[in-house]
C-alpha cells in the first residue's frame, strides 16, 4: 500500500513538473485581425541551478503555438521555426518583435484586446512554466 502510494505520488510529480526557479516576465500577445497568426513575446529567466532548454509552447486558446525567429539577412526577412533555445543558469532569453517570437495560430475563439491568455512554455526535461500573456492590438510595440 505504501509502495503504491509512493508510486502514485511520484507519478503526480512527473505529470505536474512545474519548473522551479524558471520565471516569465513582460508577456504579451500582438493580436492581428482576420484570423492571421498572432505574435507572442516575453522574457524567460532561469534562476535554477542548471541550464534549461526551451523546446516548445502551447495554449488552450490556440490550435498551434510555435517557436520562431526572425532573421534579417541581405535586405530580406525570413521567419524560421526554432526547435531549441538553451538558457544557461542565471541567464535569460527575450522574445521580442524582430527576433525570437511565438507564432500563435488558429485561435479557438475570438481573442479580445485587453484580455489575458495563458501560454505554457515547455522545457526539454518535461518541465513547464505557464504565464498569463496580455493581449494587445496590432500597433503595440
Amino acid at each position: 500500500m505504501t509502495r503504491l502510494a509512493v508510486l502514485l505520488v511520484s507519478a503526480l510529480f512527473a505529470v505536474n513538473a512545474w519548473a522551479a526557479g524558471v520565471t516569465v516576465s513582460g508577456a504579451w500577445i500582438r493580436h492581428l485581425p482576420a484570423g492571421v497568426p498572432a505574435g507572442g513575446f516575453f522574457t524567460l529567466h532561469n534562476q535554477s541551478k542548471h541550464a534549461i532548454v526551451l523546446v516548445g509552447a502551447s495554449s488552450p486558446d490556440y490550435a498551434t503555438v510555435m517557436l520562431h525567429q526572425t532573421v534579417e539577412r541581405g535586405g530580406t526577412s525570413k521567419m524560421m521555426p526554432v526547435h531549441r533555445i538553451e538558457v544557461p543558469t542565471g541567464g535569460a532569453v527575450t522574445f521580442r518583435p524582430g527576433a525570437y517570437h511565438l507564432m500563435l495560430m488558429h485561435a479557438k475563439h475570438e481573442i479580445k484586446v485587453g484580455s489575458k491568455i495563458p501560454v505554457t512554455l515547455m522545457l526539454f526535461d518535461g518541465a513547464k512554466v505557464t504565464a498569463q500573456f496580455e493581449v494587445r492590438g496590432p500597433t503595440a510595440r
Partner: protein
Amino acid sequence: MLTPRLTRRLATLAACAALAACSNKIQWRTDNIDGLMPTLEFHMTDDAGKTVTAQAYRGKIVLLYFGYTNCPDTCPTTLAKLAQALKHTKNHGAGMQVLFVTVDPKRDSISHMHAYVRSFGPWFVGLVGTPDELLELTKRYRVTYSYGKPDKDGNYEVTHSSAVFVFDGSGHARLIMVPHDSAEAITADLDQLAAQAGG
C-alpha cells in the same frame, strides 16, 4: 586694422558662407536614394476593390512596403513602427500613405487585406496584384520574395525584402528605410520630405 566697417563686412561674408553651407547639407537619418530608383509606377487593386495606378497617389508622400498578412513578425512589426512614425509627424501623417503590397495573393484576398491594413491606422492601403502586376512592381524595385515549404496543414512562410521605399509627391524615389531605422528617425525624415514640398 579692424574697422567697424571691415568687421561688419567680414560678419556678412561669414553669415553668407554659413547659410550656403546649410542649404547644401540636408541631413537624412535614413538612406538617401535620390536618383537611384525609378519613379513610382504600378497597376494594382486596392483593398476597397478599386483598380489603381501610382497616379492616384501623386501629391502624397508614399511609403511602399511588401509583405503578407500571415507574417507572424516582420510585417506587423514594420507596419506598427510606420504607424507610430506617421502619428508623430508634424501633420499627423496628412498627405502621407503607406501602400502595403501583398507578395502572397493566394491567401491575401482584397477583403482580408482590408481588415488587416485598417487595423494599423488610417494611413494604410492594401494592394493586391495579379501575378504579372506583382512581378512587374517587384522587379522595378528589385524586391525579392520566395515561398517556403507548406507544413502538414498547408501553412507556409514567405521570405521577402524588408525595405520600405519612400517616394515624394512627384513619385520620385527618395529614401529607403530598413528594419533598424527607429520610428523617430522615420518621423524626422518624413517631416523633412514634407517641408521640401512646402507642406
